[in-house]
């Protein structure tokens, strides 16, 4: 193999490597921020914004739930990794209420799912709601203290 070919091949493999990294980054971004509408006309739900914070002892899930009836709020631990939050809005919102006339649909609930990648003790879940922000706290499982 000539010296020139060797150089080209090094550049090529670097380029391939960078492309792979870029594809991986894009894939991760797509998972973190899925493309698609922030509403579902079939379930009549608007997607709520949410966050998951993992601290050494707790997992804290928050969700922005403005305009909801607190008594309809449901927080469900679907499995070890997934939390489902849904609440009915005080007043239904339609596309026309949001100034959109080229779509039709009406929304009655706010919904979101939080993914947690550590074990949580769902039986000790604590919920609070203030100014439209929901906060759900779970102690983490399998925490060993040194005596």
């Amino acid at each position: 193999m000539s010296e020139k070919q060797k150089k080209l091949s090094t550049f090529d493999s670097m380029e391939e490597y960078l492309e792979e990294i870029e594809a991986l980054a894009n894939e991760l971004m797509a998972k973190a921020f899925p493309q698609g509408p922030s509403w579902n006309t079939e379930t009549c739900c608007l997607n709520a914004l949410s966050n998951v914070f993992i601290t050494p002892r707790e997992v804290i899930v928050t969700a922005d739930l403005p305009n909801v009836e607190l008594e309809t709020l449901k927080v469900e631990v679907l499995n070890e990794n997934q939390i489902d939050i849904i609440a009915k809005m005080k007043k239904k919102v339609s596309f026309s209420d949001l100034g959109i006339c080229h779509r039709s649909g009406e929304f009655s609930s706010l919904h979101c799912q939080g993914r947690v990648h550590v074990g949580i003790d769902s039986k000790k879940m604590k919920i609070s709601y203030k100014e439209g922000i929901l906060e759900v706290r779970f102690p983490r499982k399998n925490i060993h203290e040194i005596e």
Partner: protein
Amino acid sequence: MSESIKIIEKKTVPSEATMIIGLPDVGLVGLIATSYIISELNLEEIAYMESDLLPPVVVLHNGLPHAPLRIYGNQNLIAVISELAVPAPAIYKIMREIVNWGKEKKVKNIVSMGGIPLENRQTINEPEVFGAASNQELLDMLKKSGLKTMNEGYIVGAQALSMRYSVSKNVSAIAILAQSFYNYPDPQAAAIALKELSKISDIKIDVTKLLERGEEIRLKARDIMKRTQQEMNRMQKSQEYDLPLYV
């Protein structure tokens, strides 16, 4: 690829005006506050930004197309907003162009509105507002007006660049930053930032309607907040939580 960027003027642009910048950022504080100023003072669209650095998007309002990054104004006020999350790689050129254009229009000062992310925002009833200024004289003016100033810390993004480029162009610049949610739209923080703005300027705005419409704004702003969060992550906005080291 061509990376042209220019501000197209549609109407006469005032000189010696105050220029308010409210681009999408933490809690959308600046965008909500500046949009509210535009609607309350009935400002007219006087210019818009045309650039290959922005996504190929037009925003339709009342059936007519508008550029996402627009400039509104009256005789003594200029307000810059973007209805699109500004792509992180484009923020330098966009802010440089806005500041250069402001300098060309002889703006009196540039006021950048925004949020300071607060981890426990939901536990705070009344967020605090902090100011930063491009020179000592302005900083003293902020303090005299009763505004708390941010003495140490990082500012990241549009406000940071507005400050940096203003200093290099010798344009007076102020940042008004309200404690807010990081990635939830925060109309209450925007209202409080506007109250503080009235202390240091002639812009007196009644924020009652903004507070009344808070829940509606939070619902409508979910999409732009989500896209803004992606760009904030790209520009390492979380660095605003960091403690600076200057021994």
